[in-house]
């Protein structure tokens, strides 16, 4: 990949920049997983989620069930003015609210996630609560494809379908990778959308980096009726940084100085800005 045309709009580019900056500063990994969802997060936070304030009970909810990509979420919260720069800069430091995985003590985060499958189950409960309370708030939850290895995902899928939780929308970051290998070699869940359809979810497929397409899909959904919906978003792990794209080691590796400079150049931002 080259140039800046392939790394999303300004919001998405800023998300990527923050991911690189913070992971470099803190010298931690999970960079590829965070870059993979940068465009989805950008569409959600910049154009879909209705969040007037982090404490409004009727705000839309977003749960990052693939908690290991928290840096993308922190970036979006910062760009939306829900997380100040000083706090953002504590990422992975001592006594910080910002760990590798999100914690609910951080305003704007409702649930701790990081243990795969749990955030999705919490999201189903959150959608059920909105239904019982008669609230119009919508619940969006983002899972990784490998997260669907977890049995509880399918427990929650059944429950949401049975109760027709139309106020719930799941997004799957289908990057084809898991921690130490490719999903096709470990537990191949393809075709993913068919699995969800078989469980009576309405499933859509899209390019997870085509922000316009993702926006069209999400903004066209009728959350007031029907079945729960899932967007199976085909993504590229490490999207925007050529030497990370589709590379297993970048699930865990931090960047050295040279790699950081190259990565910043590729996403079209000045290093360290």
């Amino acid at each position: 990949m080259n140039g800046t045309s392939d790394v999303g709009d300004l919001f998405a580019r800023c998300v990527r920049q923050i991911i690189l900056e913070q992971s470099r500063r803190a010298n931690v990994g999970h960079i590829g997983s965070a870059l993979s969802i940068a465009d989805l997060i950008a569409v959600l936070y910049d154009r879909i989620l209705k969040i007037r304030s982090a404490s409004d009970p009727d705000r839309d909810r977003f749960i990052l069930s693939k908690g290991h990509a928290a840096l993308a979420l922190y970036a979006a919260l910062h760009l939306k003015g829900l997380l100040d720069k000083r706090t953002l800069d504590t990422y992975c430091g001592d006594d910080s609210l910002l760990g590798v995985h999100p914690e609910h003590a951080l305003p704007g985060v409702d649930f701790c996630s990081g243990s795969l499958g749990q955030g999705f189950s919490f999201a189903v409960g959150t959608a059920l609560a909105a239904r019982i309370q008669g609230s119009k708030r919508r619940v969006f939850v983002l899972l990784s494809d490998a997260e669907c290895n977890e049995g509880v995902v399918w427990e929650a899928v059944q429950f949401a379908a049975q109760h027709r939780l139309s106020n719930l929308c799941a997004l799957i970051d289908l990057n084809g990778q898991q921690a130490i290998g490719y999903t096709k070699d470990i537990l191949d869940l393809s075709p993913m959308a068919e699995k969800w359809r078989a469980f009576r979810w309405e499933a859509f497929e899209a390019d997870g980096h085509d922000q316009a397409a993702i926006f069209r899909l999400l903004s066209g959904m009728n959350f007031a009726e029907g079945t729960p919906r899932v967007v199976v978003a085909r993504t590229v792990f490490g999207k925007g940084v050529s030497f990370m794209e589709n590379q297993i080691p970048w699930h865990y590796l931090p960047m050295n100085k040279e790699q950081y400079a190259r990565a910043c150049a590729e996403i079209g931002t000045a290093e360290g800005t």
Partner: protein
Amino acid sequence: MRNAFAKSIIELAEKDERVVLLTGDLGFMVLEPFARQFPKRFYNVGAAEQNMVGVATGLAEAGFIPFVYSIANFASLRPYEFIRNGPLLHRLPVRIVGIGDGFDYGPAGPTHHGLEDVGVMRLLPGMTVIAPASPSQTRTALQETYALAGPVYYRLGKASGKPLPEIGFHPETIETLRPGRDALILTLGGIAQEALAAAEKLEAKGVFLEVAAVAQVAPAPESAIFEMARRFPVVATLEAHYVCGGIGSLVAEIIAEHGIKTRLVRFGVREFSSGRTGSTTWLRKRHGLDGESVAETILQVLGGRR
């Protein structure tokens, strides 16, 4: 206790709209009245206990007080990590109701016995753990604790037996079921019946055993246990639970930490299932938890001291 729960939760739901009941496809002939009366607050989530706790976490975060209901081991062990990362980590009022105190599901076999639940729940800081000894205590305990801010684990027996004296519930006290002077036995849950049977047998031999029920295991009624234990030269504990982790462990910790000079005898399960099962009565006897075995051992210990 199971039936007392079924009645009490209706009373709670009548007065508090936040109460919601989720079951993992269990509660035949128990939960139907609640389901009929509150169809919008009753969810059979299916045989899916992890998701049951996950959904309850989402509900509690939005302001509900969800009760999740299953057999003790399915309610505690199967979704354990969900309990830890859900209601515990978020300090949410999810109530986990584990039915079957120890060997209550006797012939159903070891997959249905609850012998670790109290121990694993007691490990978690912030988890309230309650094991009532009688139906009346179940009702009071539910009324007293259902609205607590954090999570609660209720271990409720289902075996019927000789009714216990009417006892109440208070988180910081322990209830004396029978006064005595020679030795004390602290019991957990429905097996208090066996302690009372032991006390009767011992009385016939001129030995007076005090019997008291510890209903709230965590946070522990530490000073009440300390004050009671220091009065006796021999203190026993009795539970249908592995001897490790339950009230035997709790009382050992209190005795040791306070330096009480007393001899502790712990009655509990010490070995994993042999592969043979039977009635609750048979299983209690096999593991030395029946009144007769308890009386015999206490007599030996006291005899050894004289």
